[in-house]
């Protein structure tokens, strides 16, 4: 079964926030029935770029990592939601929070180990980045964020698990762990090719909240 995957090249992210703004443009004040209710004007960042500084002027390295709902297989939020259909996972891998059935489920916000379920106070609804499913279903081959990215750091790819696994091996893609939760994020593979020189030893890295697995140039 062909599934949607998002590959993010963290070495290419420049923190321009185009993807963040593109998502806001797509979802704020826009209702996509069956997919998502409107994103509130303030307070949500369905695509959120995290930053990590290392070093000291003039030897700096700043890592930018775009994060969003990971559309996990075995999603912890789905488990917390239960069988009422408030959170479902499509056959193509996309996880959706039903804008009707999930009403009032503020508890689901804490169910996400990545902090990517956002609470909409006005609509009393938990919300996520929907992988632009409403656009992909119309035939779009890219997400809005991918389209807006000037460096090609984001790429949505539709292929089956075996092909994705092969692509991950061939291109050196890895899943980066950005929280203390076990990294069970499937569906989104992030390639952590940090091609800039390392400035600190490996051990302090593990203590940082952001642990980025480094891969040398192939």
């Amino acid at each position, binding site marked *: 079964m062909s599934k949607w995957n998002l590959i993010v090249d963290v070495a290419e992210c420049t923190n321009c*926030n185009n993807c963040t703004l593109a998502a*806001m*443009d797509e979802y704020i004040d826009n209702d996509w029935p069956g997919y998502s209710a409107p994103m509130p004007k*303030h*307070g949500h960042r369905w695509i959120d770029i995290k930053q990590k500084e290392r070093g000291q*002027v003039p030897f700096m390295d700043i890592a930018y990592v775009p994060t969003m709902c990971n559309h996990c297989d075995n999603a912890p939020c789905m488990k917390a939601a239960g069988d009422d259909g408030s959170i479902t996972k499509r056959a193509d891998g996309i996880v959706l929070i039903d804008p009707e059935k999930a009403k009032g489920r503020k508890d689901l916000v804490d169910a996400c180990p990545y902090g990517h379920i956002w609470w909409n106070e006005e609509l009393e609804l938990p919300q996520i980045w929907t992988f632009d499913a409403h656009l992909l279903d119309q035939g779009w081959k890219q997400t809005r964020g991918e389209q807006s990215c000037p460096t090609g750091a984001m790429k949505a790819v539709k292929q089956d698990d075996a092909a994705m696994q092969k692509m991950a091996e061939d291109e050196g893609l890895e899943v980066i762990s950005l929280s203390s939760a076990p990294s069970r994020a499937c569906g989104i593979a992030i390639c952590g090719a940090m091609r800039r020189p390392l400035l600190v030893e490996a051990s302090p890295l593990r203590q940082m909240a952001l642990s980025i697995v480094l891969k040398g140039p192939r």
Partner: protein
Amino acid sequence: MFQAPAIKPVGESKSDFWIFNEISKKLGLSNYFSEGINEIDWVKRQFDASDLPTQITWKKFIKKGYFVVPTEKEEFRAPVSFRWFWEGRKKDVPEPQPLPSDYTEEYLKGLQTQSGKLEFECNSLKRFVDPERPPIVKYVPAWEGPHSGEMFEKFPLQMLTPHSKYSFHTQGDGKDSFLLNIPDHRVLVDGWYYWVMRLNAEDAAERGIKKNDLVKVYNDRGCVICAALPTARLPRGVCHGYESSAMYEPMGEPGKSVDRGGCLNLADS
């Protein structure tokens, strides 16, 4: 040059012409590509198309292997830049400068400066007494900085104010737009979106300033309240806040009170 081969072809290597001709044969287009002639005929065709036949015969050319093209006749060469000026003549080149009104004495003689010559000491600037524009270019230290004595002791941080990354003056900003959601642009503290002031992490620690603390950014010209962002990206003694904030929100009388909209230019001018 008529380049004779230096060595035999290595292995099965073939000439570009042969390769493309073979491809064109497979496409059934070899007549169009080769036009029915071979490589050496193509070289002769190039020879005939040039001016070489007026200087040397084909046989002599391939025997000798080269022909040195003589330099352009003097009258056809492009003139050396400013040669007319150097020789004290009237300008006789088509370049627009000096423009017709630029000449000081005689029309078409001299350059567009007041003396008509190249000037190291700028004559037109001698008319003004402006220490920031001396007639001879000199290094002038920044108007305020570590050399400012008492003022520097009072205000020890130098502030950089480049253009904002996420808005162009009021374009997108100042209208309660969703740009406010980007933390690098503005930070929500107690219900107000403050402009970001970045400062060196150690300078911040010395002042007891943590991330997102509200800070008063001031000198004796103006005062702005910002949200602090301690960072290692700045050296000690330097802070950074974008200018051209789209919001001016004086907390008292306009022009005479603290601004919380983020107009850092209040401290500049």
